[in-house]
């Protein structure tokens, strides 16, 4: 059951629904009553996108149609590149999907500045990405989703790591009418390393779902995950994080943290952190907290003269800052910082 199947087959019954355990908080079947017309191919200018002119190359995908060279996502041995990958939804009340594959040869290094941009209202967008990392390859993936408040958007990435490969990911979103950003990682251990971070800043009636699954199949692998969320108004944040340590995947080191702030009585966070451990000799830890902004810290800031709204914004921005500080690519880190400052929902 996926959005892409539903779009391809033009069959509503293919949509995931609350009956699917993995989709129970992001019900598409109950939301979408009618599949919209397929999105047209458009040639309009779509502007610079949130990452501006960072990187050496850009690959545009507008309404599900690729503009540019797909070869940018195939890196030869030892090759290094910074690519902006932009998914733009440009036509209202239409639907589209796209599938892309990236391959990193041994020792290759790709920094992917990936954006989801809603430039119209009320669209259905689906993206399926697959990444294959050979031995010693490195992928830093920074995902910035700015969908429209009325858009429905799903992105599902699968990452296949070879021993010694390195995936560092940061997903940033402010949600949509319904939005799911999902990443599934096949982790072979053997020196491969994963960092799987995310931040959601959700206000109004928006919905953001960050779902991740990392499956450790071999010994000596690491996964480090830090996800933070701030939800205001009637917003809803969903975090589903699953780390599985398969039998025999000894000496796995897996850490997961998910922390969310609720800024209103009607804001909602649904969290399902899971560590499934089937090996003996492992170091695993997880922490999950959902709470309000620290009133003591708020009073402290106000006693120094900072008005309440500004104090709240400062504290929530600092809260999210911990995730942003871990972004390696400096330009992207600054874009992310500005994004968090603009969208501060305090």
């Amino acid at each position, binding site marked *: 059951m996926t959005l892409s199947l539903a779009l391809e087959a033009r069959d509503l019954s293919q949509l995931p629904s609350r009956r699917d355990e993995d989709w129970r908080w992001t019900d598409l079947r109950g939301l979408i009553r009618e599949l919209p017309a397929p999105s047209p191919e458009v040639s309009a200018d779509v502007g610079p996108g949130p990452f501006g002119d960072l990187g050496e190359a850009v690959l545009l995908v507008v309404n599900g149609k690729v503009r540019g060279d797909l070869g940018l996502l195939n890196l030869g041995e030892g090759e290094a590149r910074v690519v902006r990958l932009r998914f733009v939804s440009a036509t209202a009340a239409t639907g589209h999907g796209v599938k892309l594959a990236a391959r990193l040869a041994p020792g290759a290094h790709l920094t992917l500045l990936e954006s989801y941009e809603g430039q119209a209202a009320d669209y259905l967008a689906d993206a399926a990405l697959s990444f294959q990392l050979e031995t010693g390859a490195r992928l830093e993936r920074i995902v910035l989703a700015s969908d429209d408040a009325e858009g429905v958007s799903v992105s599902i990435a699968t990452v296949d790591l070879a021993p010694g490969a390195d995936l560092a990911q940061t997903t940033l979103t402010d949600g949509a009418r319904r939005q799911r950003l999902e990443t599934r990682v096949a982790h072979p251990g053997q020196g491969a390393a994963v960092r799987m971070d995310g931040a959601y800043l959700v206000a109004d009636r928006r919905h953001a779902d960050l779902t991740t699954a990392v499956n450790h199949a071999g010994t000596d692998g690491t996964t480090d995950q830090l996800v933070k969320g701030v939800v205001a108004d009637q917003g809803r944040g969903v975090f589903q994080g699953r780390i599985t340590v398969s039998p025999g995947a000894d000496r796995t080191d897996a850490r997961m943290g998910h922390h969310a702030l609720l800024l209103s009585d009607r804001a909602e966070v649904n969290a399902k952190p899971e560590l499934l451990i089937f090996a003996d000799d492992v170091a695993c830890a997880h922490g999950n907290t959902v709470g309000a902004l620290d009133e003591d810290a708020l*009073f402290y800031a106000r006693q120094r*003269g900072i008005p309440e709204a500004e104090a709240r914004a400062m504290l929530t921005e600092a*809260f999210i800052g911990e995730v942003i500080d871990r972004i390696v690519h400096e330009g992207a880190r600054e874009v992310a910082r500005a994004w968090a400052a603009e969208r501060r929902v305090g």
Partner: protein
Amino acid sequence: MLSIKNLHARVEAAEILKGLSLELPAGEVHAIMGPNGAGKSTLSYVLTGRQGYEVTQGSATLDGEDLLSLEANERAARGVFLSFQYPLEIPGVPAMTFLRTAMNAQRKARGEPEISATEFIKRAREVAGQLKMDFDMLKRPLNVGFSGGEKKRMEIFQMAMLSPRLLILDETDSGLDIDALKIVADGVNALRSPDRAMLVITHYQRLLDYIRPDRVHVLAAGRIAATGGPELAHELEREGYDKYARAA
């Protein structure tokens, strides 16, 4: 400067302040001493506008202006500063950023122009030097991982930078060794001036050897039970608070 009349305040259902009156003229330093639970910290929070502290009767004015109807940040902009007994840690916000935000918010509220970054850093260097603080500490997230003494020094640093008119020091000596106490007291004494007033809240007389008060008030059971000169602090040190606790 500060005039408190018949102040009654409660926290949740419990009445903590029960008719407290106090006159603190400009240029003076008054100590508030009292046993645990007498309402010392409640007084500091009521004066600075913390939520959850409800005034049921009485008044508190600063140069004739009603303090109690102002928001916490508005009181700060009018020059009310509280040095916290337990300063908060603010992860992710460098001390410099925090303080500059506070300073500019106060200036904006008073209709003054913002301080420039260079001017701010120049002043910060001067004040940090006076307090024998490592300037690099100001680049770290405010109070995160600081020792008790470092946090108290950071409070005095903020106080010196913000240059308030009414200074409330809540148990500033707690957590300080004798060397840190001297540095902090020097910092406070440097701020004494004819147009400032200070309220020094403390359980022990020790701090008052370094910050010499003009008047000493004993706070017991929510009101001022006695007022005297500096000698009163020594008497309390010798004889304890028993007779005031009993009288209440």
